[in-house]
């Protein structure tokens, strides 16, 4: 498949975008997006799809289902794992996000500032639940289809906007600009290993997430969280949090790997 794809155009050097080339033909059906996988990656990198809305577990399951009889090539599998790992890392980065760029990543927030933010966020979270309900209750109202169309000339189509829309629509899978993401210096693998060894040291006892990330900078802590989620989804541990903002605990799975 990649051979054929690499002959597709003058610039189709497989190294230019190996993951999209090898994974061409893999389409995904998710709530947030349906279409080619490479398109999903492009949309995420261009901030057109929020990384938190991409259920990675579902994505992996779709990939596994797509190749049930071992027809997949090693190259293809490697590319998929590579891109899926990038998505996990992106999730980690988004969690450590600092929009104003003002915070020193090594300097923890003051307890008062943290409280202010959490209380503010909690209110927004409740408001979002309320909106969810309001929008659902009001979803079934359809407006009249019997209006007169505006007189010709009243409606304007902006040609600049139309050209910009054409660019957008026909470049959905363009190799996106990634410079703004900056280097990611920590891997989920490293932190997954750290979590596993902490669980072994704890000798079958639960480990508090807070203890695990004590002393880590925010990016590492966030990636540790995604690593914990990955381990939980593969069944190596169980995550426990009894209430919102409550302490998070990692329990070793009964059947440790």
């Amino acid at each position: 498949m990649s051979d054929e794809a690499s002959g597709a155009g003058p610039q189709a050097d497989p190294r230019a975008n190996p993951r999209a080339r090898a994974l061409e033909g893999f389409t995904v059906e998710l709530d947030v997006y349906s279409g080619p996988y490479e398109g999903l990656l492009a949309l995420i990198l261009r901030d057109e799809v929020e990384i938190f809305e991409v259920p990675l577990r579902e994505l992996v399951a779709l990939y596994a289902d797509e190749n049930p009889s071992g027809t997949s090539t090693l190259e293809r599998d490697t590319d998929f794992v590579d891109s899926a790992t990038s998505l996990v890392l992106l999730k980690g980065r988004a969690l450590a996000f600092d929009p104003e760029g003002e915070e020193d990543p090594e300097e923890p927030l003051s307890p008062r500032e943290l409280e202010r933010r959490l209380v503010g966020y909690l209110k927004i979270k409740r408001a979002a639940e309320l909106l969810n309900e309001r929008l659902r209750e009001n979803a079934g109202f359809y407006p009249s289809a019997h209006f007169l169309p505006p007189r010709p000339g009243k409606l304007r189509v902006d040609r600049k906007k139309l050209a910009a829309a054409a660019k957008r629509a026909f470049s959905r899978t363009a190799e996106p600009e990634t410079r703004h993401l900056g280097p990611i210096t920590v891997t989920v693998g490293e932190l997954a290993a750290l979590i596993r060894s902490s669980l072994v040291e704890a000798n079958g006892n639960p480990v508090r997430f807070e203890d695990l990330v004590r002393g880590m900078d925010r990016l590492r802590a966030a990636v540790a969280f995604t690593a914990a989620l990955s381990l939980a989804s593969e069944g190596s541990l169980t995550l426990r949090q009894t209430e919102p903002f409550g302490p998070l605990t990692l329990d070793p799975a009964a059947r440790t790997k």
Partner: protein
Amino acid sequence: MSAAARPAALIEAVLFASPHPVPLPTLLSATGLAEGESRRALEDLKGRYSPEASGIVLREAAGGYQLATNPLCAEAVERLREEARPAPLSGAAHEVLACVLYLGPTTRAAVSTVRGVNSDAAVRGLLERGLLAEKGRDLESPGAPALLDVTDDFLIAAGAKNRDDFPSLETLVDETELARVRERLASATPEANAGVRANDPGADL
């Protein structure tokens, strides 16, 4: 859900949401009602929406049933039309217009394939505004889906002399990107293929 709604209410809602007269079989399949109860409900509705009782009237036209404004109220409706300022088009609407302009005539499925998201609602909005129209059907695809094209009103709204009075796609989008879009359309569902086949091989895309 709809079990709770009375037959007349179901018919009322369907006629309200359809810009065209709805033939009885369509009405039955949309509402799930039997023919007898539908006819009885339509009789009731003729009373409720009579020219004497209401500003909305139920009429039979072009082989179907239609709700329409009472001619007695025509002046008020015309004044509303004069005052109404059309809402600006959304980003999605612009993208759909661009797809149909550059690929067209093409199907809804092809538009959705290019955009990567279901575009049915945006297409409907543009049909309602008269910027797109269905022009024939793609008989080679299963289900013979409708072919969409831009309208003269669209050209007027964009201040364009004709379809060619827009920058070519090649000047807007990278050649590699176009090749990929083409590949995607070709490998998509048969309905989406219609969009490609309906196009001249040497056309913009």
